[in-house]
């Protein structure tokens, strides 16, 4: 008896089934909920309500601002580290890299709790009382701490791939450090920056565990609204989720996340 032979097409079926059941159908359900009312009649009320309610718009605005600040700080911290590590000739540099990534292996809620305690301790020091009510500061701090590895890794792998010969050539041609940096390192690490930015920016718009724990739930980001609305109004909750989806889609598309070339997104972890 011959073993059944699977063509490439047959092997795709489970994945296709998975995509249909866990991606496409749920998406359609979200759209359906967003554009219906409680009796499941087609309705644009949620849509109109969302864009006419200042609290939704301001929360989107604040989420974007928090995410932007988080991303910029992450980039500012991660870029030099990645650069130094990638260019260093140290033998055990992967250990240093690992130390930066290590916290990712520890439960996230635990880490956020630990930071919360740390801030409690700090705020007890004389002159540090301001920390107690600095909810936005604490939220951004928590997000940066949490998402930093997602910025370091893509940057590091991209910079590692830059040919040594390019640096040699640039030195041969008499370029100084800054010329080399701005004409070789920076342009060639753009894919890494892009992928790091998307991997930090998008989750920090919705990770409300951080804003709840460190911002004492006085900082509200859009993910919290979605969760709150799913308590008793799935339709509005779906509308917010849909708007967020479109924002995410736009930002991914605009930063070139869908192009197949030079894409290192996701290949680093």
């Amino acid at each position, binding site marked *: 008896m011959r073993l*059944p032979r*699977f*063509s490439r*097409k*047959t092997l795709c*079926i*489970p994945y296709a*089934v998975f995509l249909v059941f866990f991606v496409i159908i749920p998406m359609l359900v979200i759209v359906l909920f967003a554009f219906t009312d*409680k009796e499941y009649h087609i309705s644009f009320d949620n849509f109109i309500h969302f864009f006419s*309610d*200042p*609290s*939704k*718009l*301001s*929360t989107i*605005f*604040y989420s974007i601002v928090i995410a932007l600040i988080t991303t910029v700080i992450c980039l500012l911290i991660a870029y030099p580290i990645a650069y130094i590590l990638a260019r260093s000739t140290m033998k055990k540099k992967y250990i240093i890299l690992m130390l930066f990534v290590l916290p990712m292996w520890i439960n996230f809620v635990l880490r956020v709790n630990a930071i*919360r305690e740390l801030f*409690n301790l700090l705020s*007890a*020091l*004389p002159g540090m009382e301001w920390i*107690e*009510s600095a909810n936005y500061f604490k939220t951004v701090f928590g997000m940066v701490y949490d998402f930093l590895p997602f910025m370091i890794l893509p940057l590091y792998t991209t910079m590692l791939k830059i040919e040594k010969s390019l640096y040699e050539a640039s030195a041969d041609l008499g370029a100084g450090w800054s010329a080399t940096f701005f004409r070789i390192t920076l*342009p*060639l690490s753009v894919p890494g920056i892009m992928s790091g930015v998307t991997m930090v920016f998008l989750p920090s718009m919705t990770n409300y565990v951080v804003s*709840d*724990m460190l911002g*004492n*739930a*006085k900082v*509200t980001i859009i993910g*919290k*609204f979605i969760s*709150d*609305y*799913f*308590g*008793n*109004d*799935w339709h*509005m909750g779906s509308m917010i989720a849909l708007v967020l989806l479109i924002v995410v889609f*736009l930002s991914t598309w*605009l*930063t*070139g996340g869908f192009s197949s070339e030079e894409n290192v997104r996701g290949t680093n972890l």
Partner: protein
Amino acid sequence: MKPRRIASIALAAAFLLPTLSLLTGCTDGETIVLRVYNWEEYIDEGGKGTFIYDELHELDDEGEPVLENGKHVHIESDIVDDDYKAWYEETVGHALSEEGPRILDDFCEWYERTHGQKIRVEYSTFGTNEDMYNEIILGNEYDLLCPSDYMIMKLAAEGRLEKYDASFFDETDPENYYVRNVSPFIAEKFATNGGLKVRKDPDGEDIYWKDYAAGYMWGTTGFVYNPAPKDAAGNPIGIDVEGLLEELDWRVFTDGNFRNKITAKDNVRDTYFAALGVTYQDELNALDRSAEDYTEQLTAIFNATDAETVAEVEPVLMDMKKNVYSFETDTGKSDMVKGTVWLNYAWSGDAVYALDLAESGETEDGEEEETALLNYYVPEAGTNLFFDGWVMPKGVTERGTKEAAEAFVNFLSMPQNAMRNSYYIGYTSVISGEEQEMLDYADYLYGYYPEEEDEAEPVDYDLTYFFLGEGSEERISIPADPVQATCRQLYAQFPTPEVISRCAVMDYYDAEASLKINELWSHVKSESLDAWAIIVLAVTVAAILAFFLFAKFEEKIEIGGKPKKGYTRIKQEDPNRL
């Protein structure tokens, strides 16, 4: 059909098969399956509460228990006999642990013994009433749920609940433990809906809690407070928290003395309730407490959701947001014990837990630490009386599990089991006991019998309302420590009749009110955005969009017009590409 296609279908089927068998593999012929859906940490899970009854009621000479079900009240005593162990191993599948049996296992054993049928409890838990509600409307089938007061009302009004059988309330049947043991005070609240206006179910009949629900736990909301807060260095701050609480009552929420030192709940229902208290404190205090309809008036104020009220409450909520340290779901207790905040708006059961923790000198993580002693305060202007009750969703009759569901409620209503649960979770059971058995429990926990002369005189703590009903001639009380009686665990767990008289239950928000309140909550939780900020936002977004769009389509925009006829423009190689 081509063989290849058959293979692919088979493969797909193979992937789906396990999911199908998961859906159907729930019942087997002889064993009834009872699906119970309860709050997290809301039943005795073994270990903590089992010894209580043992301590209260001694065994007879042969070591035989005096209890109805009670082969196994205390793991270390010889009550757990070999029969029980054998039964346990066979049914549960592993040997009885040192922790002692869970109350669910005991129920299975009891049911099998008294009803002659094997039963298995599928027990699952939820975190909020809304989560539970979502599960129900998604069509998940349970036989017994434990929602709170307002959610029972909502489920009943939507016609999702099955009434208890009339036989369940037959007091002459010795097996009807619930109706025989439930506190007359709770029974009265259930029969009158605690003063709420009567709603209709889809069949047009009046809804009363008593038809749909059997009580489980109850309590009040109030403030856990730190009477002597200290600063970081351990020096007393010298603020009279107690005095301020008495003076300001609900208004501590907006008072500058407690800026960043008070917590509110991160859910709209409880925080809106508190904001109503802050807003209408004067009106609440002005009500005539001896009036016959005082409870109705109080309840009406605490359940107002009309547009005018919402508009008045909104600025108050904004002030509260500025003043509170956090909107918390679970961190309030530990923030209190550590001294981060001085006031925590809490449910009485959680308050008892926080008070116990502070007393034991431990933080929630089990660390020994110097902690402040905490007290409990109930707002003078009136507060919330809440309870959770067992209800049966529609379909239990068809599934044939109604009898078992009712038996489960009856089992939990036996005084010894009510004690176990109550001791384990810290909330107050609705059970008072046919022979006032729960009085033993209250006395065990809080009875005060000073032996030394220099100790404080005990006060007579009146619990008549709970054990005999509000209008009773007889009187029931326990001797209590004066401090316990005014602001400690006893006061939280068994409120005084005076506290009870100024309590209001919560109604559910109908669709219209729900919309308004949700909007209010999102206003409160979000930051306000000025008009100029919106303009700046719009311009920035437009600019970023334009920049990226330009960058993206730059290549495609042809510069210098169309090429001449006969010519084609060759795309220049990207000079940056390496």
